[in-house]
């Protein structure tokens, strides 16, 4: 089952990954094939496991203030700042539509 251009475009938009070229897409295809091997296992009557931590205890913390107050350290990572605020563009800049951006996916 091949991964369609629509799915690739959707993924690029959602996760902001760039499959870059045919080799990138093929690597994705191979990764899916590798994971598909899971289907060979018979899981009838087995509860799905979604975490290897499932039988661990979830540690509960007391409601005390123990962190924070490190504005300067945090802002050191900011390329741009205004009076202790991080600066971001005015809104999400969506990926241009498939037809409008320079991606090898167009040719597919």
């Amino acid at each position, binding site marked *: 089952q091949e991964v369609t251009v629509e799915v690739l475009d*959707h993924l690029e938009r*959602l*996760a*902001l990954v760039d499959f870059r070229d045919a080799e990138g897409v093929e690597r994705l295809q191979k990764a899916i094939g590798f994971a598909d091997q899971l289907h060979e296992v018979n899981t009838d009557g087995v509860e799905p496991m*979604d*975490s290897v*931590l*499932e*039988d*661990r*205890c*979830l*540690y*509960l*913390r*007391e*409601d*005390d*203030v*123990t*962190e*924070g*107050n*490190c*504005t300067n350290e*945090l*802002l050191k*990572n900011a390329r741009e700042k*205004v*009076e*202790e*605020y*991080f*600066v*971001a*563009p*005015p*809104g*999400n800049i*969506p990926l241009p539509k498939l037809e409008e951006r320079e991606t090898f996916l167009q040719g597919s």
Partner: protein
Amino acid sequence: LAPWVPVVGLEIHAQISSNSKLFSGSQVQFAAPPNSLVSFFDASLPGTLPVLNRRCVEAAVMTGLALNCSINKKSLFDRKHYFYADLPAGYQITQQRVPIAVNGSLSYSLCIDNKMSQMVTKTVRIKQIQLEQDSGKSLHDDTRSQTLVDLNRAGVGLMEVVMEPDMCCGEEAAAAVRELQLILQTLGSSQAVMAEGQLRVDANVSVHHPGEPYGVRTEVKNINSIRFLAKAVDYEIQRQIEELEKGGTILNETRAFDSKLGCTVTMRDKEGKQDYRFMPEPNLPPLILYDTKSLPANLNHQQVVNIDCIHERLPDLPSVKRAKLVERYGILPEHSFTLLNEDGLTEFFETVVKETRMKPKKVIGWILNDLLSYLKQHSLTVKESPVSSFLLADLLNLLEKKEISSTAAKQVLAELWKGEGKTPLEIVKEKKLELIQDQNELEHICQAVIDGQENEVIMMVLG
């Protein structure tokens, strides 16, 4: 024209009242210097991990119990992915698959035709309550075409309460939210002050003809008060009806309420249907809650949340408080609603009752008609009242002892509002409002009046 049935559901986010955040130890506080209440985890720096705050779990369990929910002894955390500048991790930790509480109900009351004497009780089903993180705050600077981001709020614990679409208009939605607000404040699980963003409501609205399937729904956001909630819902219902009657269609979209214009508008920033790519939160095992039966012997009690213990410690909910007031003081149900609706009014009323011999049924009239209307006229809260409960009790005692008339009492009250520090007795003496009790004196006065009006007296005697 076939009738329209409006359908309204609500998604309510209540900020949990706690010292520190849901998954980190930074402080929860409303106004603070930007980015001062932010830990490395809140800023999503690599290498940081979530650690669940026990107080937040207890708050959610309390709220679930108060709303008659089943508490899930095992609930799970998930990641909900989307990009926004105030969500540094690129995902929100929430409970999408198995939330902490499900299948509850909330009863609320409405006045029919705005008459307080005719109240009707309605119920709305609670679909679920889930624990999740709040995002940071974005301040839009349109002049410089940029957004300023403050992460102080990022990671604060939220309880999302989902109400099923059992409501049919703005008034019902407002009443349900008001009752939820009172419950949360009584429990202390959230201070639920809408103006400070501690209670945020999104409404889901659709209309359909009876017997037909539900119509396309829109989501309405940016509602900043309970009053605006009613307006926004009613506007959206009307808008949808008008659109459909014109032959148009309703888009499944998110709209923002514009309080200045009193209407809802399309939110242009939403790009189509979002794919949140939900996945289990890999860093958190399932949350296990216990009750007295299932309590394990060897577990550190600090690590245990016992649902039965929390149940036992639940305070009287608003509905119970109202019933007790009605039973104890013989006041009407609608009076108890007003008492609970104003912060501090119940305490005020009970203090006056304690300090005076006047029957509670009479005191309530002075509280609701005189005191409350004055406070409303001057936009004062009960705490800001220039007339204290003791002062009012003094005044009512004078009235009870028949030392003054009811009319005089109202005059004294008018003076007391000035807050000049005079006692009721002082005002009575000053304005000579005492009722004359002496029989002889009264006879003298009456006789003097009769003597002075001989002609009128003759006319009266002749009929």
